[in-house]
């Protein structure tokens, strides 16, 4: 596999190191000269100097034969353009972009730049996971693959509490894949009883979320 990484900040540099350690062929493009020189001393020919939003720089980095383009500059407009050009001009099938400001996520979606990851969103998700005030956590969203995994807390007095997994009236297209109880998780059997206070992981088709969570929410 050949990967082109644009942006040699903390994310881009560490990602490049990890990919190299896994035996992936990588080129890292950095536009700041001081950063480039520092990284060049460590990584040598892996690093190229230039503005990764310029076509000739991308071509010099070999974008035509890239299997993966990773846009992780500190500028969302740059990341959007890099992915757009990689996809539409150079027919790169796989690209991943960083969203620096979560408010710009709407523009990545508007221009169909997916997947786009935001460190802020990821940390927020971890906070939701760690802080039990939130009843529902999105663990995984793969819109292209039509797949979601959510974590829900089983509330006292909800429809599901006290029922066996096979008795749950889950909608077609959803399934309980794991139960977290007293700090450890296990894969439930059909006759596993769901208790209040458990956290359940449910794998579901997009759009079923409200039907699924209704079973676990406290009766209102």
């Amino acid at each position: 596999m050949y990967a082109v990484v644009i942006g040699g900040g903390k994310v881009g540099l560490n990602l490049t190191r990890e990919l190299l350690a896994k035996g992936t062929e990588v080129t890292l493009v950095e536009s700041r000269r001081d950063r480039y020189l520092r990284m060049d001393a460590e990584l040598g020919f892996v690093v190229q100097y230039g503005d990764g939003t310029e076509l000739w720089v991308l071509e010099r980095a070999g974008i035509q034969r890239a299997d993966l383009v990773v846009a992780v500059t500190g500028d969302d407009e740059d990341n959007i353009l890099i992915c757009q050009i990689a996809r539409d001009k150079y027919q790169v099938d796989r690209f991943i972009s960083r969203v620096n400001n979560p408010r710009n996520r709407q523009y990545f979606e508007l221009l169909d730049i997916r997947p786009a990851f935001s460190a802020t969103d990821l940390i927020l998700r971890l906070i939701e996971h760690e802080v039990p005030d939130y009843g529902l956590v999105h663990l995984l969203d793969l819109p292209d693959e039509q797949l979601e995994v959510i974590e829900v807390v089983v509330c006292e007095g909800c429809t599901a509490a006290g029922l066996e997994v096979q008795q749950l009236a889950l909608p077609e297209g959803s399934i309980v894949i794991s139960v977290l109880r007293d700090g450890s998780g296990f894969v439930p059997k059909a006759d596993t009883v769901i208790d209040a206070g458990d956290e359940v992981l449910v794998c579901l088709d997009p759009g079923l979320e409200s039907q699924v969570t209704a079973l676990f929410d406290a009766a209102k």
Partner: protein
Amino acid sequence: MPFVLIVGSGRVGSIVARNLLAAGHEVSVLDGDPLSHERLDEGQESTWEGAGGRFTIGQAIERDALVEAGIESADVFIAATNGDNTNLTIAQIAQKMFNVPRVLVRVMDPARAEWYKAQGLETICPTSYAVQMFEQALATPGDEA
């Protein structure tokens, strides 16, 4: 007269704004730098607002700033900040999110200008014009020749 929203009150944006306002257009300018307003007033008999212009301080990429500057009712959108990638991104936002009928984009890099033109954006590349002018000037004898 059509309503024109210009993002970027630099040398190009501010002069285009003044000329369009003088020609009777409704003109709104958005720029992140409050001081850029001076370019709109410079050498004019009245202030920009006094002459009927609008000015909004805000980042080009911020949805709220674009809305405040009037993007929802704009007939023409001109992306003239000093960043090519910002211009290309906001131009596509104007086109695809706000359905502005006419979108013009300044792109300094000829390669990106050409490619995005082929993708359906109306790009304007000052660099290409400058190159052309130099070449034309060189092809004709100067005063000293």
